[in-house]
């Protein structure tokens, strides 16, 4: 790592010289870094100065060798929590005879833009205490923040990160705020969104028709939620729709108004104590839940959860939970405890549980704008809690989950609290742009050794998401000041992301390079783990276009840098009706029967489906085939009768997982798969497993059997490839790794065979991480 090397150099010098100039890169602006340096220098009796510039922070310190050494050490160790130092460049200077004191100099503009704006952070303990303190001038002020907390990425238009370049530009600080802002010893020194009730943003509560509602907005909002109403809440990166999660009628009404969707809804509770009886909370989960990024964390439901939270996450093993993160959220809970003057409520169980679902009607981007909310959420929200601080960049809540035994959490969606934090690559290289896939799209820019994976953008079948992708490219490019030397895209010609890639490449006169979908999935894992040597890549995924023009998705690859070789694949199974088959597991069940040579049973087994006989006919005549393992999951769900049709992506596999989890571990008597050498590679055939499922009357047992046999089959398949190739590292990626049973089983199985398993940690294992892999591949192709 370049940064580490430079640091080592700095330590050497620190013991020898008396004046040093340090240039720090990373997240060092807007996080209280200069006051921190200022305090540290004062404490150690060092002379010099510190300032922000386009590269990050530059400082000079002069003093005794020993003090300089301590300074160097504490610079990293005691840096503000919101800061992240990626690199330190050190220069030794001659001591200045007239040096006196330590000062914070004005920011220097110009030069190459290397600085990065930090992610949005939850309200800090200091601000939270002030928020609930009746004596504080910011008592119950929903926009309290300091350099340790608050909005950043979502309010920034461009660099450098100064108030003038944020949506706070229109608010002029009052004398009291300005005094804090200009005092290096205050924790609000250069807190760009600094504000108070006198000078800052204000809340307004509007009714469904857009008329202002009199009274205290917080008290009124809570009262309405308690009455069962649905309120649109303006948050950090967009609007939420909130209602009482314990009110069955309110939840059902929310679902009805959002088009009866069956997707699980996330909830917010006051603190971890409030989860008692609802969800299992391990130490690791608690850490994530309480982290400053405040993601939605998927927790295993407890038996009473569905009764306590009716309709919130039916039929699933997991419950999405987050803790309050904005002062506004805390004010709702503060109100719910009668504005208790004692701080103890913060850690005590509170009954108020809120459904907090993204206000993204019809799968369109999250609503961010007040006017947009009043039109876009019409017919859904009964009231709107608005404010006048603009959201400049739409950013959804992040979703992640701890995986026992894996050592770190897994992203399901990476957005608020994490973007734009860079993922560090193993080395520097030319800047590239990767535009990702079709579903769960996110894009990725690289700059030197950093990869900037954008926030989750959404599915590109929606017009507004396509626009959001274009806007995100422009915005991130502006923030990073890079000119990509290549544009990466998926091999699928009809993705909007592919078409946009071709257009941008043409405009910039740089190559547009297609990267195979599953190669990119594996490459994303290699990128974050900084692996250069050849690995086995196990891609367990939905459909992605293969280099042979067919639909891949259960692939065993040998990946080395920019290239890959297909070592094996799942046995192809019919995809009757293309994308329809991916939404209707009964069709895949029928395809399974056809594959078993029992197509004549399709019409009777799926007699509830009007098209069953015709589908059997189609299958008999031949339909396009896929090696996607996602479709084998669907086939199992279809044959077990778990789910005939899905209302959201992955629903059948998630229910299958839930059933298997509820059933518990199952011991296999025999292998239910066949490995065979084919001209196209080592083929894994799961037909014997499907055959067993045909005669399984207990869906729970069937689901458990499917998982157990699949894991054994995959382990042997990968094991065989490891034997023949001599490669011991297995990079695993693809949407199926969101299945906790599968991931856990593979972790154990591969470890037992002495194989090292690498998983996606810095980015989602599914299509949300695709752009990172595409960027990594293409950067090596053009080098």
């Amino acid at each position, binding site marked *: 790592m370049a940064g580490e090397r430079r640091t080592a150099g700095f330590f050497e010098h620190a013991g020898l010289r008396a004046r040093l100039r340090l240039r720090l890169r990373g997240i060092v602006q807007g996080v209280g870094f200069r006051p921190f340096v200022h305090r540290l220098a004062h404490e150690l009796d060092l002379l010099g100065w510190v300032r922000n510039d386009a590269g990050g922070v530059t400082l000079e310190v002069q003093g005794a060798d020993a003090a300089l050494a301590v300074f160097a050490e504490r610079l990293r160790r005691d840096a503000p929590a919101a800061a992240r130092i990626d690199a330190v460049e050190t220069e030794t200077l001659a001591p200045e005879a007239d040096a006196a004191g330590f000062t914070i100099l004005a920011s220097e503009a110009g030069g190459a833009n290397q600085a990065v704006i930090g992610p949005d952070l939850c309200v800090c303990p200091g601000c939270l205490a002030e928020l609930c303190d009746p004596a504080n001038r910011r008592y119950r002020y929903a926009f309290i923040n300091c350099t340790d907390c608050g909005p950043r990425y979502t309010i920034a238009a461009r660099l450098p990160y100064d108030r003038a370049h944020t949506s706070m530009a229109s608010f002029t600080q009052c004398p009291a705020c300005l005094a804090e802002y200009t005092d290096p010893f205050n924790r609000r020194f250069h807190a760009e969104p600094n504000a108070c009730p006198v000078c800052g943003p204000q809340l307004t509560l509007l009714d469904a028709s857009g008329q202002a509602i009199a009274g205290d907005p917080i008290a009124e909002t809570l009262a309405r939620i308690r009455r069962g109403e649905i309120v649109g809440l303006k948050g950090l990166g967009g609007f939420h729709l909130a209602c009482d999660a314990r009110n069955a009628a309110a939840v059902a009404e929310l679902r009805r108004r959002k*088009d009866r969707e069956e997707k699980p809804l996330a909830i917010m509770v006051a603190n971890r104590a409030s989860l008692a009886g609802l969800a299992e909370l391990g130490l690791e989960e608690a850490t994530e839940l309480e982290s400053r990024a405040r993601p939605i964390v998927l927790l295993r439901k407890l038996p009473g959860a569905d009764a306590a939270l009716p309709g919130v996450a039916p039929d699933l093993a997991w419950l999405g939970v987050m803790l309050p993160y904005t002062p506004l959220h805390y004010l709702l809970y503060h109100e719910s405890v009668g504005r208790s003057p004692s701080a103890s409520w913060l850690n005590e169980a509170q009954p108020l549980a809120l459904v907090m679902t993204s206000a993204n*009607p*019809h*799968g*369109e981007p999250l609503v961010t704008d007040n006017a947009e909310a009043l039109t876009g959420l019409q017919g859904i929200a009964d009231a709107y809690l608005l404010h006048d601080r603009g959201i400049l960049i739409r950013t959804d809540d992040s979703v992640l989950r701890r995986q026992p035994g894996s050592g770190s959490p897994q992203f399901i969606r990476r957005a608020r609290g994490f973007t734009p934090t860079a993922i560090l690559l193993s080395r520097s290289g030319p800047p590239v742009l990767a535009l990702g*896939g*079709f*579903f769960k799209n996110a894009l990725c820019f690289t700059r030197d050794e950093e990869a900037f994976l954008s926030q989750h953008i959404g599915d*590109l*079948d*929606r*017009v*507004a998401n*396509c*626009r959001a992708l*274009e806007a995100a490219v422009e915005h991130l490019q502006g923030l990073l000041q890079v000119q990509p030397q290549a544009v990466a895209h998926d091999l*699928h*010609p*009809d*993705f*909007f992301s592919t*078409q946009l890639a071709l257009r941008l490449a043409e405009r910039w006169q740089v190559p547009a390079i297609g990267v195979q*979908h599953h190669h990119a999935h594996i490459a994303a894992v290699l990128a974050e783990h900084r692996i250069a040597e050849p690995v086995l890549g196990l891609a367990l*995924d*939905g*459909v*992605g*276009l293969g280099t042979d023009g067919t*639909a891949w*998705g259960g692939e065993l690859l040998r990946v080395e840098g920019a290239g890959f070789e297909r070592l094996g694949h799942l046995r192809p199974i019919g*995809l*009757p*009706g*293309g*994308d*329809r*088959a*991916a*939404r209707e597991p009964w069709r895949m069940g029928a395809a399974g029967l056809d594959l078993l040579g029992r197509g004549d049973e399709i019409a009777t087994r799926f007699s509830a489906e*009007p*098209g069953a006989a*015709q*589908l059997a*006919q*189609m299958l008999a*005549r031949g339909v*396009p085939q*896929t090696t996607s393992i*996602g479709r084998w999951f669907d086939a199992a769900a279809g044959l077990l009768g778990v789910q005939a049709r899905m209302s959201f*992506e992955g629903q059948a596999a998630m229910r299958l997982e839930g059933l298997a989890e509820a059933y518990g571990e199952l011991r296999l008597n025999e292998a239910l798969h066949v490995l065979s050498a084919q001209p196209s590679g080592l083929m894994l055939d799961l037909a014997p497993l499907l055959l067993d499922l045909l005669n399984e009357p207990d869906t729970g047992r069937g689901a458990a059997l499917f998982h157990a046999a699949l894991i054994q089959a995959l382990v042997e398949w990968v094991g065989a490839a490891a034997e023949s190739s001599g490669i011991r590292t297995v990079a695993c990626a693809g*949407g199926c790794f969101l299945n906790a049973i599968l991931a856990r089983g593979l972790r154990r199985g591969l470890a037992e065979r002495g194989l090292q398993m690498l998983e996606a940690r810095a980015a989602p294992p*599914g*299509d949300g991480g695709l752009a990172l892999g595409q960027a990594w591949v293409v950067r090596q192709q053009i080098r």
Partner: protein
Amino acid sequence: LSHGSGGRAMAQLIRELFVRHFDNDYLRAQNDGACFPLPAGAGRMVMATDSHVVSPLFFPGGDIGCLSVHGTVNDVAMTGGQPLYLAAGFILEEGFPLADLQRIVISMAAAAKEAGVPIVTGDTKVVEQGKGDGVFITTTGVGVVAPGIELAPQRIRPGDKLLVSGYLGDHGVAIMSLRENLSFETAIESDTAALHGLVAAMLDAVPGIRSLRDPTRGGLAAVLNEFAEAAGCGMLIHEKAIPVRGAVAAACELLGLDPLYVANEGKLVAVCPAEDAERLLAVMRAHPQGRDAAIIGEAIVDANGFVQMETVFGGRRMVDWLSGEQLPRIC
């Protein structure tokens, strides 16, 4: 049929099959080409050509013969022209049954007669077995465009209305169902038909029509994307306004097809200024070929030039241009 059978055999085929059924003075003159007068006062001439390959050759509602007449007649009609004459070129595969060829020629002759557009010249070649797919037919049509008629997608402006002349997807679904050997409760027939009569009525009522297109291969989606690109604006259609027969929708669902992308052979898409839309719709509905016409959307201001559909659930879906067949996308 046998390959290379020049001379007498071919002459006999032409005389006994083509000349007999297409029968008109131009063919009877037995020249290498046809000479014909132009109508007095015609504005400009229009010429269009289209090669027809379809499998299977015979399908519910038609066959390659009538299709090859309708296809070119419609291409001429979409320029706003009145089609006058057709030329037909046949490429036949050796061994193709004469009875089938006869059926096709009779169907062509009937279609030409019904359309009032004679086939005035033609050519026939036979290729070796395996080098063709039964029959390929290329037809070329000439016609005239009346003065003042100026159809071009570049003339489309935001606010203009989009109309279709009837139910979408019939032809493509009829063909696909036959290929897949699927039967449905209600038989789905190809909509193959000549549209120049309808077009004449439409232009008569609304000479300011901006553009006309027949949504054949690539369906409505391809036409709207062509419009959007040429006009530099967006297109917005409303799912609930788009006429699709229940049986076609059901078949599309089964086959995993989107009716917006399925071929039609007897439908047109028209764009006209908003103030003329209702009048145009009334005229279309009064014509047998436009009975089920509908206003389906409008051209809109959109910097991206996106073609978008407001779905029945709300929200806007992209209706983008496909590079080829509908490939699976779901990951």
